[in-house]
């Protein structure tokens, strides 16, 4: 029998505004129940990491949050709007405030770096002029220190560079929330550290909230204000790195060993 959610964090006086609220989320694929009664809150300016084993439903969770998957049960509220109740147009408007860094980067192979970055801008902000687009693309690339790659194709870039370009594309709409799906998976530890530091730098510069899906403990230690342990489809434990590191629970401990 699994214990109830363990809240190990210490209470603070000021509670910032909630930007994401997930209540009793359930998602199954056929008979395989991936998430059951999952609860999560993300506050303004906060970086929350969802930690769990591979295949535990972490990516399913953020895909439910951004509306790519429809939950079977439960409520997913983003910036005060219930994602499941929104029409496609309303969902598109909401998505303009959410950045999503895909695990595979999801850069469009047939487009240059510039076109990749312009794509979400042209789609969400149709009134923007070419001069403004150029300025925003350059700024986003400078943020990830890759301004020189503007006319290159994704296939010409290294794994770490592709990740940074994907991050720049995520940033270009100046989102309030960024969802990171395993941002350091598949890249070397040094580049992984650079990406993690970049995530912190971006969060501080643009005051974004971040929900990070990861099982890379180095990245988690660097980026997490709070960690949520996803185990058996539920929010099993929550707390800061230091708090969870001291936990005696074997299901929590196994991640920190």
């Amino acid at each position, binding site marked *: 029998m699994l214990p109830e959610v363990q809240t190990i964090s210490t209470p603070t006086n000021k509670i910032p505004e909630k930007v994401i609220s997930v209540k009793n989320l359930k998602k199954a694929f056929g008979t395989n129940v991936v998430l059951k009664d999952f609860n999560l809150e993300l506050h303004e300016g906060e970086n929350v990491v969802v930690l769990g084993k591979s295949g535990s439903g972490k990516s399913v969770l953020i*895909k439910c949050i*951004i509306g*790519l998957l429809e939950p079977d049960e439960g409520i997913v509220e983003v910036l005060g709007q219930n994602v499941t109740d929104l029409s*496609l147009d309303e969902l*598109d408007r909401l*998505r*303009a405030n*959410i950045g*999503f860094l*895909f*695990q*595979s*980067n*999801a*850069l*469009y*192979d*047939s487009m240059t770096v510039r076109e990749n970055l312009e*794509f*979400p801008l042209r*789609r*969400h902000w149709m009134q923007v002029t070419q001069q403004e687009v150029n300025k925003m693309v350059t700024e986003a690339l400078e943020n990830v220190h890759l301004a020189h790659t503007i006319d290159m194709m994704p296939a010409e870039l290294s794994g770490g560079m592709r990740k940074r370009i994907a991050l720049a594309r995520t940033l270009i709409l100046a989102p309030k929330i960024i969802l990171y799906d395993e941002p350091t998976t598949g890249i070397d530890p040094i580049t992984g550290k650079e990406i993690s530091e970049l995530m912190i730098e971006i969060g501080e510069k643009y005051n974004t909230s971040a929900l990070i899906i990861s099982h890379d403990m180095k990245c988690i230690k660097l980026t997490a204000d709070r960690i949520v342990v996803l185990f058996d489809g539920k929010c099993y434990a929550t707390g800061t790195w230091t708090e969870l590191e001291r936990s005696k629970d074997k299901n929590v401990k196994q991640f920190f060993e």
Partner: protein
Amino acid sequence: MYIPQTWKSFFLEAGEISSFTGRFFSQFFKPRHEFREFIRQCYIIGYQSLPLIGLTGFIMGLVLTIQLRPSLTQYGVESQLPSMISVAVIRELGPVITALIFAGKIGSSIGAELGSMKVTEQIDAMEVSGTNPFKYLVVTRVLATTLMLPVLVMLSDAISLYGSYLGVNIRAVTSLSLFYSQAVDILTFGDVLPAFIKTFFFGFAIGIIGCYKGYYSSKGTEGVGRSANSAVVVSSIMVFVIDLVAVQITDILNLN
């Protein structure tokens, strides 16, 4: 009632392709229309296929002429060579062979492109970027294949007849104007129009099947290869099925 698994899979897939086609029509009329992407696809699907289609058309006309000549000589009707080639190419060989080449080149490329976009989450990224991926990827490609194949078939027919003209001139001498008048005078409304109309259906089927196979690709890179392969196989079979239906319809309408 016992239904074998292969039949179940067949009917299931046929149902899914029908539903995918229904979705195409429902999305086609809704704004926002992706005109720029449609033009880009016309360029890729139409213009970039031209060298291959032209070459196969030329060889088809030339080979057909060389192979048909001995039989016609035997019956003493060698002079009818341009007319026979013209009817065979315009009515049947041009549309079907061009469509099969097109299915091989474009069907597989659409299946592989959308399949790899699916497995690398590019389709999800598009959706997150405020784009309807079905409209952007599927509607534009299907429209482009539907409109470009008839144009390619017309060009292929013309190149094929030119190949035939050169073939005739290997063993005999004929002028281009004489060859042209012999090839064109034989053609009737019933030869040209049904053959032209069916190419739209060929193009539509190739586009829809390529997009369907790619859009629902799964199982990683292995799935991408499988999507590309089955896009070619299924769309080639569909070309023959549509051709069979078309010939029945023209027969009923006394256009044969």
